[in-house]
């Protein structure tokens, strides 16, 4: 009997070591972030301190978004045309643009309800989580696309009413790239920063 117990214990210990730390489900990841951000938006103290509120929101969003992948996907085939220094600058400037865009939009919050809906698997490592913002002028579907990276889930695209942010910016950058190349794309982003 003792032997059996010992064996079972060994099995348990072995299993414990071997089992990988279970990653959080994508839906949980999104739900948690949405809830945290909603807390900041509803907090009366933060409502009167926009800067502090923006920083808190960015603090939640930053680890969730994979800005490098988003940058690469946005430039698409043009990414290779940039030298490493230009690539770094693009990632920095573009992530700042996206972060500001996202934060400002979120800060427009007017007590709308946010529903986290279904998760739809795209393939083994990609998935999307659908949310809906019940705005006064009608519901706005907002979908987060995530991919598995180092055992965790990272956002690589956001779709508002079916419009992919990445694709939307790619259309715009493509045009600028065609007319003025990488330097023109960067100049455009630099000017936005100062404005």
């Amino acid at each position, binding site marked *: 009997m003792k032997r059996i117990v010992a064996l079972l214990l060994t099995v348990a210990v072995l299993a414990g070591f071997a089992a990988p730390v279970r990653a959080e489900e994508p839906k949980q990841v999104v739900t948690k972030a949405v809830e945290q951000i909603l807390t900041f938006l509803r907090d009366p103290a933060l409502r009167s301190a926009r800067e502090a509120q923006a920083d808190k929101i960015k603090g939640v969003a930053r680890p969730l978004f994979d800005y490098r992948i988003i940058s690469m996907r946005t430039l698409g085939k043009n990414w290779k045309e940039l030298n490493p220094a230009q690539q770094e600058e693009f990632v920095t400037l573009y992530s700042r643009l996206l972060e500001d865009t996202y934060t400002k939009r979120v800060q427009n919050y007017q007590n709308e309800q946010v529903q986290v809906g279904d998760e739809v698997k795209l393939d*083994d490592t990609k998935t999307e989580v659908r949310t*809906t913002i019940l705005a006064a002028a009608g519901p706005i579907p907002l979908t987060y696309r995530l991919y598995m990276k180092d055992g965790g889930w990272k956002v690589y695209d956001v779709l508002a009413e079916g419009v992919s942010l990445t694709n939307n910016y790619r*259309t715009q950058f493509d*045009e600028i790239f065609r007319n003025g190349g990488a330097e023109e794309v960067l100049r455009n982003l630099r000017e936005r920063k100062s404005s």
Partner: protein
Amino acid sequence: MKRTWMMLVLAALLALPALAAGQQAQDRKLEPGAAVASPLNPAADIEFLEGGEAPAPTLADPIEPFNRGMFWVNDKLYFYLLKPTAQVYSALVIKPVRTGVNNAFHNVRSPLRFINCLFQGRFTRAGQELGSFLLNSTFGIGGLFRVSDGVEGLNPEDDEDLDQTLGTWGIGQGFYIVWPVLGPSSPRGSVGYAGDHFLDPLTWIIGGWGVGHPLVDFDKDKDWIVPLAVSVGERVNNVSLRIGDYEAFKRDAIDPYLAMRDAYVQNRAARVEK
């Protein structure tokens, strides 16, 4: 002794799935830059990195100079006419009322969405639409409140229109057109818009209003006045709830014209696809 062996086999069997899971987790940790095919490692998947796995739909824009002109006209119309009007209006009417009016317009068009669902063969969605309509018309007091939003299974769904129906039938959009006042469209979208107008219950409800009325005494040839006033009212009411959206869109865009065109194309494609 036999028992010990049996226990060991059992133990091995029990530990197997866990070990396998551990192995799988290790498989995922691939060397950076290792070129491995898609499903296991997105970070090394060229197609994914170039955004090619979900290519954006496109729409030809052969009349771009005209469209850019109309975009400019609509932009000015918004800032100099629509927005100021909506601002005055929202100062006069409290938000719950404006939301209610917006909801009521949405509700009265429910039959239009229902018919389009049927045309598209989306019977589940048609059922949801009917359910929402009944619920919002009764408990939502004639559609003033969107009671259905909080009901599981009647989840908020977006619009269904004839343009989507035509798209579902495999008819292409044609090319991009920006109409003054109405905004982004296409030949298919324009046909859909006109068709929807005839399918719209509101068209039939208010069609004859004012004609032969003892007080206003409209002639038959002025029967467009009320419908026009109603659609202007609807638009102003709707815009009053979304002031700031267009401004934010413009601020975030690199080229607002291209951003708008792409958003229109993507949005239409996503709706047809569903």
